[in-house]
């Protein structure tokens, strides 16, 4: 028997409808969500083994060329912990990331920005948290880029994160921003997060202690997934 998930605190998240982010306008449900206690379908989830990971999966500076060439840009280590709402580490959680290259260009047919592709950069990586919930990957700092929304909108430098916990209903996609980026307060996508303290938690601080002299800078990004309610007083059927 799995444990029930703590119901999601929707005030921690953006609303579906946010006119500042124009694409959300026709893609936002208007009817209320149907709120129900989680059950086995939500509380279980796919299990990924460490054997899934190749040796360069977590190194975006090399994985596109499989080590044959290095990506252009400011070399950074991104590291942190995945915890749950009960402040417990989430071990063996799959963390997937994707990002633009150092010039702010994605390797995608739909991205027509002037900044060139980097022949040595794909822009995807993945890793798994260890027993204490720690993860790290190595990459280049992505560039800012313009996007079609209002007249002159630019995305702050950011890395997309996709996370699996142990329950399918813990699934989370979010974005990490960088300390000190003046574009964060101007960005309509960052601004979908209305709670200022929640937005601040998407901004990774520079972490000089983890940076390596003459090699790379480091940024720390902790992530919190939904937790479970574990009490002796759950209403379980006889014999379950």
């Amino acid at each position: 028997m799995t444990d029930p998930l703590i119901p999601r605190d929707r005030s921690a998240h953006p609303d579906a409808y946010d006119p500042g982010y124009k694409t959300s306008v026709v893609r936002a449900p208007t009817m209320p969500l149907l709120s129900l206690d989680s059950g086995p379908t939500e509380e279980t989830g796919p299990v990924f083994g460490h054997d899934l990971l190749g040796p360069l999966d977590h190194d975006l500076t090399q994985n596109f060329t499989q080590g044959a060439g290095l990506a252009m840009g400011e070399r950074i280590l991104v590291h942190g912990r995945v915890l749950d709402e009960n402040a417990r580490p989430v071990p063996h959680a799959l963390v997937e990331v994707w990002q633009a290259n150092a010039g702010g260009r994605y390797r995608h047919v739909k991205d027509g920005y002037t900044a060139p592709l980097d022949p040595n950069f794909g822009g995807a990586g993945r890793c798994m948290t260890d027993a204490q919930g720690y993860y790290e990957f190595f990459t280049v700092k992505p560039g800012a880029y313009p996007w079609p929304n209002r007249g002159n909108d630019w995305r702050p430098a950011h890395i997309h994160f996709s996370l699996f916990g142990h329950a399918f209903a813990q699934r989370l996609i979010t974005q990490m921003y960088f300390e000190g980026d003046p574009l964060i307060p101007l960005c309509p996508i960052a601004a979908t997060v209305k709670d200022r303290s929640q937005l601040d938690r998407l901004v990774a601080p520079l972490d000089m202690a983890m940076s390596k002299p003459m090699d790379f800078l480091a940024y720390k990004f902790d992530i919190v997934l939904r937790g479970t309610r574990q009490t002796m007083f759950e209403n379980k059927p006889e014999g379950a």
Partner: protein
Amino acid sequence: MVQKLERLRETASQTGGPYVHIGCLPSFTGITSIFPEDLGRSPIAEGARGEIVTITGSVYDGTGWALRDAMLESWQPDASGIFPGHEGADPAVSGFCRFAADKDSGEFTLRTVKPGAVRARDGTLQAPHVALWITARGINVGLQTRIYFSDEDNSADPLLARIEQGPRKQTLIAEATGDGSYRFDIVLQGPGETVFLDM
């Protein structure tokens, strides 16, 4: 003053954006040198027990346009209603699949085994269903829903019973079109809007 609750708030969700496939289905964007294959290509392997079903559909926005950039994930138990990783589960069922709307037509296809019924915590039997999670540019928090099957007895399912308006229940039921095929369209907004879940 009171004692401090040692709780953390969940990290805020952000849209997966237009390039979600780069990270989640890289081969869809032509990136094939990083990973040997995309994660969750199929929820079943050769020899999976049960009835093979193919579910086809589209994700429509509020104007009736099928999204070309939606990414979906499904999660389900095996044909006996046992979730992967649990005792007695069919080893040929991973239960997880990740798939995209077609970039030209917007249509997606999920090929899997029809899941068995699963008991809820209170012991009531839920009708067979697949959990679905939908993300795309413009979706700020991933959307949860379920796929039920029109040729199963859904009359006693506790989740469907919670939907007050009869016609809205139909938005969660894939329509059998013969030979193990089903149609399941998702409407993000407006008339026929799919019931999305907060579970």
